[in-house]
């Protein structure tokens, strides 16, 4: 038992260490000026997607529920954070404002997670997938028609158009329907991104090894058994799902503060994005946090690295994705990997083919 605990601790430390080492190496490259502009621009998005993949892995891998609307929570976090930053621009110092924006984004996303979770997580079956799928689309569409303005009298809302806000003179429209929010201050940096990744990892890994986390995993593995020993199913499910949603919200805030413009397009907050995050999780291994990080990084880099191929890029990307899936998860490929694993090269006999935690 003691040894097992040590194993998990060690395993977790490896995951943290991996992130920190990657950070240090990248920083060295940045400081020595040998990192291309493209890669420098990709650093913050990479952190965003890593956080998203980790948070979804909490729902899919630890809780064992399928969520198809993760981009919706990201969208909520992004708009909340950007809205807050835009409203308080110039009144609160930069660092503090961004910190508050992250907290607020996480909070609002968590609230939505709970609101959705309350009815759905009481049910058995794949209802969460269905509801979150609809939720993601609804959020995207609401954001596309939402107008919010601010003037001396306070905030004005409208779901119709800019004119019906009836702003007083000097009022400012903050969320402009389809045009979204533009002019969000660019606060996201790689360092902040990495800190957030580490915090996300810390939350999730500690949760997994806590009493609550074991309750959550017990529900995943056998609901009836868990219920019979008195675990409050809805409570624990709701907790895990809310944490997952709020972390996605954090990723959204990071995303919003990296770009000057924020619009809810199908491309960034739509169904495809949710599936993309799910692909990170599945490819990295369900329940495997380290795998999620690696998969998110690789799959985000891939289309950019393939830019040289011009129009064939998306085609190649799809092919590579399929090949990676097969290579990672087909039984034959796993056998092959077990036979040719790196560990053998290190002269070890025990070929633990199933890497990760």
């Amino acid at each position: 038992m003691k040894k097992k605990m040590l194993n998990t601790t060690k395993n977790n430390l490896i995951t943290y260490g991996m992130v920190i080492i990657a950070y240090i190496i990248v920083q060295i490259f940045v400081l020595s000026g040998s990192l291309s502009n493209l890669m420098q621009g990709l650093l913050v998005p990479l952190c965003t997607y890593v956080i998203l993949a980790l948070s979804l892995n909490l729902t899919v891998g630890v809780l064992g529920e399928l969520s198809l609307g993760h981009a919706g929570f990201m969208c909520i976090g992004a708009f909340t954070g950007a809205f807050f930053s835009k409203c308080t621009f110039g009144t609160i110092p930069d660092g503090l404002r961004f910190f508050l924006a992250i907290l607020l984004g996480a909070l609002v996303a968590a609230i939505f997670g709970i609101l959705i979770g309350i009815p759905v997580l009481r049910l058995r079956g794949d209802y969460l997938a269905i509801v979150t799928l609809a939720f993601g689309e609804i959020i995207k569409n609401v954001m596309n028609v939402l107008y919010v303005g601010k003037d001396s009298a306070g905030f004005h809302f409208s779901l119709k158009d800019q004119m019906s806000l009836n702003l007083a003179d000097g009022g400012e429209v903050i969320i402009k329907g389809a045009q979204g929010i533009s002019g969000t201050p660019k606060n996201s940096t790689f360092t902040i991104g990495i800190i957030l990744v580490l915090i996300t990892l810390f939350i999730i890994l500690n949760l997994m090894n806590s009493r609550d986390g074991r309750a959550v995993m017990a529900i995943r593995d056998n609901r009836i058994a868990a219920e019979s020993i008195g675990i409050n199913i809805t409570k624990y499910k709701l907790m895990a799902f809310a944490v997952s949603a709020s972390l996605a919200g954090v990723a959204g805030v990071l995303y919003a503060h990296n770009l000057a413009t924020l619009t809810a397009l199908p491309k960034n907050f739509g169904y495809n994005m949710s599936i993309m995050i799910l692909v990170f999780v599945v490819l990295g291994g369900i329940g495997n946090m380290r795998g999620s990080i690696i998969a998110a990084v690789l799959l985000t880099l891939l289309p950019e690295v393939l830019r040289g191929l011009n129009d064939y890029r998306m085609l190649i990307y799809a092919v590579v994705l399929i090949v990676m899936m097969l290579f990672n998860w087909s039984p034959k490929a796993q056998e092959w990997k077990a036979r040719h694993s790196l560990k053998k090269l290190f002269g070890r006999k025990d070929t633990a083919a199933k890497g990760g935690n």
Partner: protein
Amino acid sequence: MKKSKMILSVLLAGTMVLGLAGCGSPSKSTSDNASDSKTSDSSDGDTFKIGGIGPTTGGAAVYGQAVKNAAELAVNEINEAGGINGKQVELNFQDDEHDAEKAVNAYNTLKDWGMQALLGTVTSTPCVAVANEAYADNMFLLSPSGSAVECVQYDNAFRVCFSDPNQGLASAQYIGENKLASKVAVIYDSSDVYSSGIYEKFAEEAKNQDFEIVAAEAFTADNNKDFSTQIQKAKDAGADLVFLPIYYTEASLILDQAKKSGYDTKFFGCDGLDGILSVENFDTSLTEGVMLLTPFAADAEDEATQKFVSEYKEKYGDTPNQFAADAYDGMYAIKAAFEAENVTPDMSISDICEAAKKGITSITVDGLTGGEEGITWTADGEPNKSPKAVIITDGAYKAM
């Protein structure tokens, strides 16, 4: 076992990062960072490197492709005619998938390549994001078709097309001044920046004009196939003109469905309607009498347009739309601006930007979209050109 696992992880982390750096290495040879005022490499100082960004894949690919093709066409022509200030021009067009994040990636890729000025981006949302980056680098940016107001909010950014509010304003004024209608219905795409931008200004200006908006019906990108509700509402409100500040794909459906529901009225659109005559499986006779305000008409009589259209058709097998025309003009505007200030490729990006900023406000480009007076630019980035109102008669544009 644990140790080997650790080694494995470290190795993985290492390879990941090396991968990062590896992809970065080709850039080292070209200008490393635009932020320092170091002049871009003198070794390739004899060509201008112009970047382009637009969606060449995905839902908006038709616009990106058009811009890409036309920009290529213009660059080839310029090079054949001796280049800019005697220097050849190189074009590198990157895909942004109509996504702000991807557009910034594309922008950074182009920076690594050594871009000295940017013709892009094509669509509005990515353009706002890229304009911000370009402003930080002081890179000259000329967007062929980024029509949202914020696209040119910085002094280094200019555009070839009209801004959305300008189109809305011009349309409202045109309808009002020519007394085309007294009751107007609007069908617009509330999820689209272009469409809602035009609509808002149109509705604002309508208050000053001699007509009334009796119905303003929105649709979104998710339900842009069935317009019977919107058409019925416009019909019930008794509108004698329907204003369509949308793209031609949806407009062709609206025309078709209006005809089927027996709604006979006038239609008026903006430059997004250009292209409606080449929609496949669409009875173009339905467009008879449709009016649109557009800076470019592919079957205009003038020599420049005809030459452009025939060359474009020959090379890419397609009739160019207004995006193509804007890009073509944009490339020539860059040429003219560079020539006006004697820009040479060995200048730094920032110096080129300053010179081009000065140059572009002093030039007049006749161009395809300029009308009779040509296009001039003001320092705030907006073009000055006169919109042409055309009416479709016998399957062709006719000036009104």
